[in-house]
């Protein structure tokens, strides 16, 4: 028993129970029939690849989103909450992955945001009292170096994370007498080793008093160090529950990865043999503070997969390649010619276009029709002297709708009415229609149903056969290995490995994961 407390007293007492929890977003199931039990005094780990459903489960438990089906119980009574505040009242608090502090308020104001009334007289807050209380709350978590009256934007990121943790612990422990459930979603990403250890000490103390903790991290070593039990997720399903004492990194890798890739799903046999001419080359490409010295050569007809956990810098590399962000060092050469991109338009002129990661925000123009969405990047091709031929535009849109099998009531339908898979196909149509020889596919199958996934895979095979080159950030590792002809693995902003993945020589997922984490 790790936490040095009496197992007999707490463990049999169930704190939180979830049964049959599922979540579906528009026909796309991201979480399937999850049963989860958290006991008092327990620290449970949650591991899985990106998109395995960990974050979704946490969102459901913390009241951000309701489950599509399933029941939950907290402290023996049914638990249903419609908001984070609701969850707080029931003693469930989450420390979010993204910083949820308001930067232009002070530390104390953040800790007591929404709970100022206890310090106020006739609507006027007694700040001194609030600051003193905040000081005490933070001292409970061993934070003594942050003045509570400092604005959050003036304190470093790691400190913000600790303030956030202190805040959540205070909220939930006020709501219930040590019968709280605390959710930690990757709290350690920005912490130094010492800070992390003090956080772990605090988490153990919390658990020792009888609270339950769910801990999510990409770093398996931390999960193994801190937790009592580990839930392993893959593709929205629970693949294993292990006692930490019986788990090791290798076992976890295996369970996270699940079955071996069935190569046919990714049509590896149809993988194009890349030619020798290099179409895109980066040399020591860097973005200050995000990634450094990324060099690779992309050949014609090749699929170059970039793997890494979220925050490894792969997303930023992608943004730089498609011109959305600028590099701070290094060079990009397209067909041997040095190029600098100020905006995605420059990249498009050079022949690079991307399928963005966030379809709703960066991909579709929801208010406009399918036609306008599909032809957006190829208007120049369809126009002469700046005047678009509507006939050509209709034909182009219609031909893509038929070719990719986009299910819609017509090319004038608003694209926001399409399902995720069909909207994604429309974006593929836009990108392919632009005739760009280099495509950056940033999570091309995110939020897409299984059927459309298969179609997108065969589409990628088809275009690479025609000589289009692809830089791919896979939605899952499985996918990245399955599709790529070569893989670049990144960790903490540097390239840690490179694999040749020609057909029949695919590296195993465990090999790749080991370089990632």
């Amino acid at each position, binding site marked *: 028993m790790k936490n040095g407390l009496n197992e007999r007293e707490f463990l049999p007492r169930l704190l939180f129970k979830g049964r049959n929890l599922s979540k579906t977003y528009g026909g796309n199931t991201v979480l399937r029939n999850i049963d989860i039990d958290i006991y008092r005094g327990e620290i449970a780990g949650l591991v899985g690849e990106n998109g395995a459903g960990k974050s979704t489960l946490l969102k459901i438990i913390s009241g951000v989103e309701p489950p599509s089906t399933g029941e939950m119980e907290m402290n023996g009574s049914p638990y249903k909450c419609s908001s984070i505040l609701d969850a707080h009242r029931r003693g469930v608090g989450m420390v979010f992955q993204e910083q949820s502090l308001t930067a232009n308020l002070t530390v104390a104001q953040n800790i007591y945001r929404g709970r100022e009334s206890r310090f106020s007289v006739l609507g006027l807050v007694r700040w001194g009292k609030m600051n003193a209380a905040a000081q005490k709350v933070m001292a409970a978590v061993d934070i003594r170096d942050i003045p509570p009256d400092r604005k959050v934007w003036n304190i470093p990121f790691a400190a913000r994370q600790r303030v956030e943790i202190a805040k959540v612990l205070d909220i939930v422990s006020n709501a219930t007498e040590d019968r709280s459930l605390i959710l930690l979603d990757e709290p350690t990403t920005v912490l130094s080793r010492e800070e992390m250890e003090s956080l772990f000490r605090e988490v153990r103390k919390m658990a020792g008093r009888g609270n339950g903790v769910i801990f999510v991290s990409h770093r398996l070593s931390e999960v193994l160090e801190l937790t009592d039990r580990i839930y392993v997720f893959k593709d929205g399903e629970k693949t294993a529950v292990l006692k930490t004492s019986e788990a090791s990194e290798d076992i976890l890798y295996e369970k996270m990865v699940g079955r071996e890739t069935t190569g046919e799903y990714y049509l590896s046999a149809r993988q194009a043999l890349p030619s020798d001419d290099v179409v895109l080359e980066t040399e020591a490409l860097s973005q200050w503070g995000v990634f450094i010295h990324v060099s690779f050569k992309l050949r014609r007809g090749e699929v170059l997969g970039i793997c890494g956990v979220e925050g490894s810098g792969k997303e930023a590399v992608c943004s730089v390649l498609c011109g959305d962000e600028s590099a701070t060092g290094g060079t990009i050469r397209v067909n041997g010619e040095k190029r600098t991109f100020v*905006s995605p338009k420059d990249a498009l002129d050079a022949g690079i276009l991307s399928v*963005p990661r966030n379809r709703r*925000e960066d991909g*579709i*123009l929801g*208010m406009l029709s399918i036609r*306008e969405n599909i032809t957006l990047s190829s208007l120049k091709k369809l126009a002469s002297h700046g005047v678009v031929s*509507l006939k050509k535009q209709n034909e182009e849109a219609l031909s893509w709708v038929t070719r990719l099998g986009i299910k819609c009531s017509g090319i004038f339908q608003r694209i926001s009415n399409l399902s995720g898979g069909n909207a994604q196909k429309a974006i593929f149509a836009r990108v392919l229609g632009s005739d760009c020889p280099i495509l950056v596919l940033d999570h091309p199958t995110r939020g897409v149903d299984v059927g459309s996934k298969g179609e997108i895979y065969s589409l990628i095979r088809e275009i690479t056969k025609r000589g289009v080159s692809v830089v791919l950030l896979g939605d899952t590792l499985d996918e990245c290995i399955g599709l790529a002809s070569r893989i670049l693995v990144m960790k903490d902003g540097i390239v840690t490995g490179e694999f040749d993945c020609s057909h029949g020589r695919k590296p195993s997922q465990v090999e790749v994961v080991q370089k990632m984490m």
Partner: protein
Amino acid sequence: MAAQTQTQTQTNMGSKMKLFVKDAVSRYTYILCAVSVVGAFYVLNPRFLSMYSVQNMLVEAAPLLLMAAGISFVLFTGCIDLSTGAVASCVCVLTGTYVARVGHGIIPLMILLGVAAGFANGCIVTKLKVPSFIVTLCAQSVWKCVALVQSGGGSKNIPIASRSLVLWASKPFLHFPAICWIALAVLMIFFFIQQKSVVGKNIFAVGANERAARMAGVDTAKAKIYAFVYSGLGSALAGMIYAYKLKSSVPNIGDPLNLMAISAVALGGTLMSGGKGSVFRTLVGVLTVTAISSGMNMAGVDAFWKDIVYGVVLIGAIAVNSEKGVRDLVVR
């Protein structure tokens, strides 16, 4: 399970039907609005739709139509242009002052001025990243001042000797004055730009989702600059038409126009947040606004009260048209 699926399909059908009705209603609100305004004034005073009255209204509507059609493009991008009235004032003064000396050569010069004013707005918004609200508010102040300085603060008539130069604009042509036809012709050009040009399509793309448009390789800065240029062009034409119509230079002619133009666009159902709308809808909006204005005149409403009505109409029209179903929509 099967039963559940069935009820789901049924509710889907129900919500689809509802969506369809809602869609149809929101699509034609602007026409309904125009018809009811005209209808109401007609009931109050049947002379409202007499030939004389309609001719008058269209003469009133012509400059407003030009300005509103131009400003529509800015609103399609989700930006706003508050400088149109001041640009019109300025152009009106310059035209009135110099038409006697320069002759018809003043027309291309003033068009150039309008384009330049819009270009400046657009460049400041896109290159210096200043919100369009601020940029055009400041531009408004600048152009207003130019108009006042140039005119010396008061209206001046175009000298009788040069009147012949401007008379053609008010001469009827096929029952209606030439300026009405000019306004209509410019509207058609704007409609063509909106429907068929690459720039027009990009302007809508920027308004619908600027991030996504940028990621798709659209030159968003260029699209916005063009939108402001069209707006400046429309304002300049409006100012010129006023000078020709009133045969004088009036330094404060544009003051109420900005509000009227934006009200007209909003009444047409163009979204203030961008991405949706049409200059044709703006035409209907302009007719509605003009009908309200003339109707109030005929009903004997004090001119001072008119701006109150426009203000209320603008807020009402925007409230009716804004997309409320969108979660987390932040209105700035």
